[in-house]
């Protein structure tokens, strides 16, 4: 298939179908409702399931029920809706069912706004719901990457039997870009016979399967959590993805930025280069697992004087950046939220001022 011009939200819906996901449940919320609108007519065309639930709470459990019987399933929502689905995410992670959740982030807290934001970083990477669980979190920076990440998300969810979250900001959902749907990312679903409540007849078994999250025995619950932790550790070992930019240069400043914000930073980096100031960037593509080692290594470069986490939030990812850098270089934060996306000029100014203050401190 050649390239087509598509809105991010619609491309995400199409990517799910191309990935072999024929089951979609959702509740309308701006700025992601176009996914539901698109799939409401596309799913019937491919004999798939489309259902608009009565709330995000219910949708979270429709996903759980469908995932628990072994179906490839996805939902999409935006920040306040993800808060409501977070209960289900905790249950799904504990019960170890694969499912894909897309969060087209808008500004918060509360009802917040409907413009792009990256304010749900903590929610996605540190929990959101209760208990010790993790999501595998993918953060696209373009419509094309959103398509690829949706297609990758299903095999990842199945490999780990864990929910995968795609974190796009409102811009990723709302903008139109040329996209290409790669056939090679379509995968067959892994066999679910050992765990899914698919009906004993379906799997030709006399043993029933049980999908649950209750462990009243403290030793069993601890053991279950150790098992989950081992899985999350395996994600850390095998699934870290990031994109370095201008990292071969003798950069004085290292930016860490993801999603739409990283694209603005890229332009700023190019402009600064033309001015004679070298700036490198690590763009996390997975927010969990976080590219700690890559950031630490990049920050350790002798020329690097300062690390700046630039995000459309009041400073969330910066905590992981600090953790990664481990005090080897000063770590600063810059960001805006509420829907205002910092401009390249603003980023350039920020970089200049941080460089200046770093020099002052050195002197």
């Amino acid at each position, binding site marked *: 298939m050649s390239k087509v011009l598509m809105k991010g939200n619609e491309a995400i819906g199409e990517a799910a179908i191309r990935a072999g996901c024929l089951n979609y449940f959702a509740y309308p919320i701006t700025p992601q409702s176009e996914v539901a609108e698109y799939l409401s007519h596309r799913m019937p065309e491919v004999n798939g399931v489309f259902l608009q639930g009565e709330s995000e709470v*219910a949708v979270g459990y429709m996903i759980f*029920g*469908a995932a628990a*019987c072994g179906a490839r399933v996805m939902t999409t929502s935006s920040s306040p809706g993800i808060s409501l689905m977070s209960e289900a995410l905790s249950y799904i992670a504990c019960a170890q069912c694969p499912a894909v959740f897309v969060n087209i982030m808008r500004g918060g807290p509360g009802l917040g706004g409907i413009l792009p934001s990256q304010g749900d970083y903590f929610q996605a990477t540190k929990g959101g719901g209760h208990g010790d669980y993790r999501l595998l979190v993918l953060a696209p920076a373009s419509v094309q990457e959103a398509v690829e990440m949706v297609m990758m998300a299903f095999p990842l969810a199945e490999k780990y039997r864990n929910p995968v979250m795609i974190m796009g900001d409102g811009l990723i959902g709302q903008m139109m870009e040329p996209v290409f749907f790669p056939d090679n990312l379509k995968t067959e679903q892994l066999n679910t016979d050992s765990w899914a409540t698919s009906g*004993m007849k379906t799997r030709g078994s006399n043993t029933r399967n049980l999908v*649950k999250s209750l462990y009243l025995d403290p030793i069993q619950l601890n053991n279950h959590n150790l098992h989950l932790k081992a899985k999350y550790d395996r994600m850390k070992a095998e699934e870290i993805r990031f994109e370095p930019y201008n990292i071969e240069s003798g950069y004085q400043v290292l930016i860490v930025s993801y999603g739409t914000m990283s694209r603005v930073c890229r332009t700023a980096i190019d402009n600064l280069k033309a001015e004679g100031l070298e700036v490198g960037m690590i763009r996390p593509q997975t927010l969990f697992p976080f590219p700690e080692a890559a950031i630490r290594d990049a920050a350790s470069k002798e020329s690097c004087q300062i690390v700046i986490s630039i995000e459309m939030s009041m400073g969330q990812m910066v905590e992981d950046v600090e953790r990664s850098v481990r005090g080897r270089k000063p770590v600063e934060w810059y960001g805006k939220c509420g829907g205002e996306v910092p401009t390249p000029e603003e980023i350039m100014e920020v970089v200049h001022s941080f460089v200046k203050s770093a020099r002052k401190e050195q002197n």
Partner: protein
Amino acid sequence: MGKTFHKPEALSDQPTHYCPGCTHGVIHRLVAEVIDELGIRDRTVGIAPVGCAVMAYNYFTCDFQEAAHGRAPAMATGMKRVRPDLMVFTYQGDGDLASIGMGEIVHAANRGEKFTTIFVNNAVYGMTGGQMAPTTMPNQRTTTSPFGRNVAEVGMPIKVAELLAALQTPAYITRQTVIKPKYILKAKKAIRKAFEYQQEGKCFSLVEVVSTCPTNWGMTPLEAVNWAETTMLPYYPLGDLKTPESVNGGTDAK
């Protein structure tokens, strides 16, 4: 003459955790008998609630999922939509279904989801220690209504079967009880009918079962049975509230 009474195949050998005089055991057995009779155990998936029946999966031998509090109808919806060939039932108490899960059950019923709900109404939160439920009777004392349910403050008990029967979508909605042998066969027939409607892909089906909770009511099992009969049954009358046949062209079931 062969053995005529035996444990249903759909029930396990697990010793019960339910209290003496609790009706969950009887209801479990009726559901299991129906599963056996319809020969559907190998394609049935149950969904356990949060409440006393949270570990219902220990007693059944079919596939089982465990829901969060009140969310079983949403899980059943997800499952039936992607696997209409499976037989799906939720097993829920009154705190689970009529309080925290009211939204999910109303919308599942209104969409006409093709699964079956066994709704156990014992007028109290059981597992958490006898707190007031939406179904608690007027003036009934519970651990959170120590002076009796004050209907001026918290309203009248919710009649779930009547509430769901008022929806315009065709459904099978019935109220039964298992507190005395004379009611049990009728309850079983209703449960069977509910599963059959699902099997035919006809409609949503719900069997409300008026039940006892001697432990949290502070009664002996016998006192509990009598209290349920004299206090609950007049308020929660037994019988079919709605059958899919009774709805024609969207008119009300009378």
